[in-house]
């Protein structure tokens, strides 16, 4: 296994994975079937763990496969399956092309304190404060947000350009798509990480993965036990240092023939670069020597694990006391609770499982899912929230519940979704056009899929909305359609815990089939 075959395999495989991931995050709405997305997401490490904790089934066992893969082969995940890692490789390649002559990676000492501190902070912080650090640092979610916020608009611009040209030739194969941004506050963190990972990979290869990424650090620990590694043949090696120069992880100490397996991401560039074929990837055997430095690391790791176990206990104790997040009264309507997406079950469950990858936001056909700012509180920053000023939840659509990789949104059949009440309608008569303008409107009732909003006689021939909260499912189509500004005359207040709504009123209309023309 010394050939350049491994490197070529890595490049082809990761390119396919990257294209698939960009496609699902930037896809043009409903072109893709959710079942294919599932296969791609199955092996994503953190989402898989969260889903596994929830459903305790091998259907969410992707992370176990990744652990096994790491135990056998090392950090293959980081180069073959992690979209953020692959994306950084692309940047790294670009960086190398720009500064061909000047960039040398070379061996660097590991950022031991930083990387293990981040890992401990993420694990402990998650148990104490909820999903905040996971949301921030899960590599899959960072990638997802980068595509959603920064790459997707570029793709849309290209699409619209092509659609414009085709349109001139009377061809509607492509169509214009509105580029709708999100609340500017939602861009802060995604922008920060896009720039951070972009710049680090442009100049320093995989430094982000080996210094900050908690998944990288954790798999690095596991890979210390891996059976297959990259080895240097001291007899063949001429100490030319080429391998060290191309190593994106800066983990090859060529003078001492040492390769830091905890940082090596199995990109196999070094094997390819070695003119003497001194490097090879293979079974490590029993001859592994223990290094002195391992002792201190082990103590640090053991300590970290103890800390984690201790903190996790206290974290659980606190978890029960977490109140349902309240929306701050900055919004126009008097909503005292945000509306969480269907399948969330309850806002607290949802906040504790969502990694804010943005996939549901990207696939939502109606743009009703928007990244939250402070609606759920700090821990729910960037998680999806229903925004009925941007769109409404399509009655027969269950797309977001089908693709969620963490089960923060649990799959709902359309029939179940149509009876899941995520919020309740509230009508403000004093804002209503029918009362203020004395003209017909009824946009809300027209839009209502269950007729929880219906019209009753008002002055003269006018009719005015009336609501029946029992059959309302909180889809928000009424709020979206209501034409009053700046405050809506009808809106949906979220249910902290989703409820079952009653079935809509079904009965024969009073109109019969005419036997003859009534004119």
């Amino acid at each position, binding site marked *: 296994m010394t050939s350049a075959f491994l490197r070529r395999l890595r490049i082809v495989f990761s390119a396919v994975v990257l294209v698939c991931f960009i496609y699902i995050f930037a896809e043009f709405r409903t072109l893709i079937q959710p079942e294919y997305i599932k296969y791609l997401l199955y092996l994503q490490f953190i989402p898989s763990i969260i889903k596994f904790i929830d459903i305790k089934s091998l259907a969410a066992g992707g992370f176990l496969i990744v652990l096994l893969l790491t135990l056998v082969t090392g950090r293959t995940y980081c180069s073959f399956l992690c979209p953020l890692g692959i994306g950084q490789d692309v940047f790294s390649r670009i960086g190398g092309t720009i500064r061909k002559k000047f960039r040398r990676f070379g061996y660097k000492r590991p950022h031991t304190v930083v990387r293990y501190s981040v890992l401990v902070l993420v694990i402990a912080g998650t148990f104490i404060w909820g999903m905040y650090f996971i949301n921030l640092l899960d590599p899959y979610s960072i990638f997802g947000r980068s595509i959603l916020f920064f790459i997707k608009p570029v793709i849309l611009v290209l699409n619209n350009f092509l659609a414009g040209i085709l349109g001139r030739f009377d061809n509607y194969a492509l*169509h214009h798509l509105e580029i709708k941004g999100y609340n500017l506050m939602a861009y802060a963190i995604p922008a920060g990480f896009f720039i951070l990972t972009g710049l680090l990979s442009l100049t320093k290869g995989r430094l982000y993965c080996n210094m900050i990424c908690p998944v990288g650090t954790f798999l690095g620990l596991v890979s210390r036990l891996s059976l297959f590694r990259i080895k240097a043949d001291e007899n063949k090696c001429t100490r030319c240092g080429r391998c060290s120069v191309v190593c994106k992880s800066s983990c090859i100490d060529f003078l001492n023939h040492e390769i830091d397996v905890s940082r090596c991401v199995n990109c196999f560039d070094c094997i390819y670069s070695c003119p003497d074929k001194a490097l090879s990837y293979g079974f490590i055997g029993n001859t592994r020597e223990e290094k002195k430095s391992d002792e201190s690391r082990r103590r640090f790791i053991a300590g970290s694990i103890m800390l984690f176990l201790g903190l996790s206990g206290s974290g659980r104790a606190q978890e029960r006391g977490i109140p349902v997040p309240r929306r701050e009264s900055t919004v126009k309507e008097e909503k005292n609770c945000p509306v969480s997406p269907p399948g969330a079950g309850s806002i607290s469950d949802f906040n504790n499982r969502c990694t804010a990858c943005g996939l549901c936001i990207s696939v939502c056909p109606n743009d009703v899912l928007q990244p939250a700012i402070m609606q759920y509180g700090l821990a729910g920053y960037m998680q999806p929230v229903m925004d009925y000023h941007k769109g409404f939840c399509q009655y027969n659509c269950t797309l977001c519940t089908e693709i969620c990789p963490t089960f923060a949104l649990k799959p709902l059949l359309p029939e179940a979704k149509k009876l899941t009440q995520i919020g309740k309608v509230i009508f403000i008569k004093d804002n209503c056009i029918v009362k203020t303008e004395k003209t017909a409107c*009824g946009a809300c009732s027209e839009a209502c899929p269950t007729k929880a909003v219906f019209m009753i006689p008002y002055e003269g021939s006018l*009719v005015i909305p009336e609501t029946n909260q029992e059959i309302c499912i909180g889809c928000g189509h009424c709020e979206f359609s209501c034409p009053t500004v700046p405050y809506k005359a009808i809106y949906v207040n979220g249910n902290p815990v989703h409820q079952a709504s009653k079935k*809509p009123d079904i009965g024969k209309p009073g*109109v019969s089939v005419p036997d*003859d*023309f009534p004119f």
Partner: protein
Amino acid sequence: MKRRGFFKTSLGAGIAAGAALSLGRYNRVWASNGTGAKYDLVAVMGGDPDEMFDLGIQELGGMGNFVSKGQRVLIKPNIGWDVTPDLAANTNPLLVKRIIEHCLKAGAREVYIFDHTIDNWINTYRNSGIEKAAKMAGAKVAPANSEKYYHEITIPTAVKLKNAKVHELLLETDVFINVPVLKDHSSTRITCAMKNAMGIVWNRGYWHANNLHQCIADYALFKKKPALNVIDCYNVIAKHGPQGVSKEDVVQMKSQILTTDWVAGDAAAARMLGIAPEKIDYILIAHKMGIGNIKLESLNIKRIKM
């Protein structure tokens, strides 16, 4: 001036203006109303949507009376809601298909279909069955999901809706055929021919916020009027309209109304739902503004039972 006198005068002026503005393209259509077709309105009952259309258009002198060789035709069905055809919230796809076939047979160069949907447009086009039916028949199904496709127009004689943005295909095509579906409506009581135009404009919310009935009538003043209205009354949502909640809301009337006058079409459609047309504000307003004739008794109507 008496109302009838006013009506006659404005209709005459409207015809003259319409003919002049469309640079003669409509001459044949207007001519056909005078000579070719014997009826103001044709109503058919008892068949499938496509069969009923075959009979109805024959009574109006065939599609050749409305579409000339080489013309580009816009067919505007109601494709508002993301539901299946049996729920009747959208125009029957069979009917749309048959109208396209007649247009192409009459020599139309190109037939276009679009609607500014209420639900997500890709899903709505697909699940309504209209996209597939239209493509099979040889029409182009155009997107209407972006403001890019809409252009500013003015309606000088309007009361409320003096400006609007309408889909470019309405302005670019030579013939406009309006193919609404009759439905109960929670606010305006019925939705049919004139209200179908809400799917041609970009900003529907403006209509709702600025006297909905007046805006519906105002839009009907716009110079680009339908050469023909084909009203689908095969499956009719008679309760919980315009969207419907379940199949229980649908009454199978197996009927169809064809007319060049969309006010008369709406009046006849209202009667189908057992409502006096004068009770529906926008029909009455449109009649008073001289857009068409609400008085069905004064029209020459052909009734066909299959």
